[in-house]
């Protein structure tokens, strides 16, 4: 009985968050389909999108895990939060540069479409991931806090909700970055 309760708890707490995640991802897919497809440089941009989505997941996922662990073990404080945030932002900038460089190399070797200036390859991933994290970090911390305060396990519900929010904002901020930089 206890075994079923434990399994049921995971399913019960994760299910609503997953539904929100699916809705958020449909919206992200729609934005991708309607707003990014018309760009002339679409074939280069579509190379960056999966890398950005996975970078977002790889940065915010561990950030959420570290924050929820800090809440659970009672070690959440200003210092740990600031260092966690700073590390996440530093990683995003370093990996953003690498994504740009490798995208340039792969485009040069495989796709061979030369309509984007070199600096755009670096600026697009960096600006869009920093804009996404500026929404993701405060909202995931707030969600972790709310879940913990109401006696829910932050591990079960925060990640899927944040995936939906983050994926949607990644694509939106990606589009905004393209507009800011004047990408053709």
């Amino acid at each position, binding site marked *: 009985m206890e*075994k079923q309760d*434990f*399994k*049921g*708890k*995971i*399913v019960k707490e*994760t*299910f609503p968050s*997953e539904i929100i*995640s*699916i809705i958020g*991802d*449909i919206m992200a*897919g*729609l934005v*991708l*389909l309607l707003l*990014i497809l018309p760009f002339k440089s679409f074939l280069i941009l*579509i*190379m*960056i*999108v*999966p*890398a950005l*989505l*996975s*970078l977002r*997941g*790889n*940065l915010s*996922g561990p950030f*959420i*895990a*570290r924050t929820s*662990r800090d809440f*659970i*073990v009672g070690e959440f404080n200003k210092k*740990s939060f600031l*260092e*966690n945030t700073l*590390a*996440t932002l*530093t*990683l995003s900038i370093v*990996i953003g540069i*690498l994504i740009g460089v*490798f*995208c340039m190399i*792969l485009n040069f070797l495989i*796709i061979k479409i030369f309509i984007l200036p070199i600096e755009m390859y670096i600026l697009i991933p960096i600006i869009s991931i920093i804009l996404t994290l500026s929404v993701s970090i405060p909202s995931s911390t707030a969600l972790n806090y709310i879940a913990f305060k109401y006696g829910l*396990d932050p*591990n*079960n519900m925060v*990640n*899927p909700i944040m*995936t*939906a929010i983050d*994926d949607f904002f990644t*694509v939106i901020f990606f589009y905004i970055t393209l507009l800011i930089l004047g990408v053709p």
Partner: protein
Amino acid sequence: MKYFLKIIKESIIIVIISSLMGLFSGTFLSANQEILYTIPIILLILPSLNSLIGDISTVLVSRLTSGLYIGTVPPKIKKSRSLKENFLGLLINLVEFRCINSIRIYFSNNNGN
């Protein structure tokens, strides 16, 4: 700054590798432009496919991390009740959402046609 350096040191290689994998999958999509332009529904399902696996695995990883810290999961590679329960709970969710996603894609595709 000890915590900051620890995070950077432990994460950077893994994040580089996974971002490169993402870039390769993007290149694969980009190299098949005929498919992308003739079946644009692929773009609609791309974020949800990406996130479904991410959601389930991050929940599992997050739970395991907390379990390891508070001692409910032993730091050994062996079968444990807690580990088994985590896997089963998330497997049920994964199957449910694969079904929901497949139905959604089927209807989106039919509407598109």
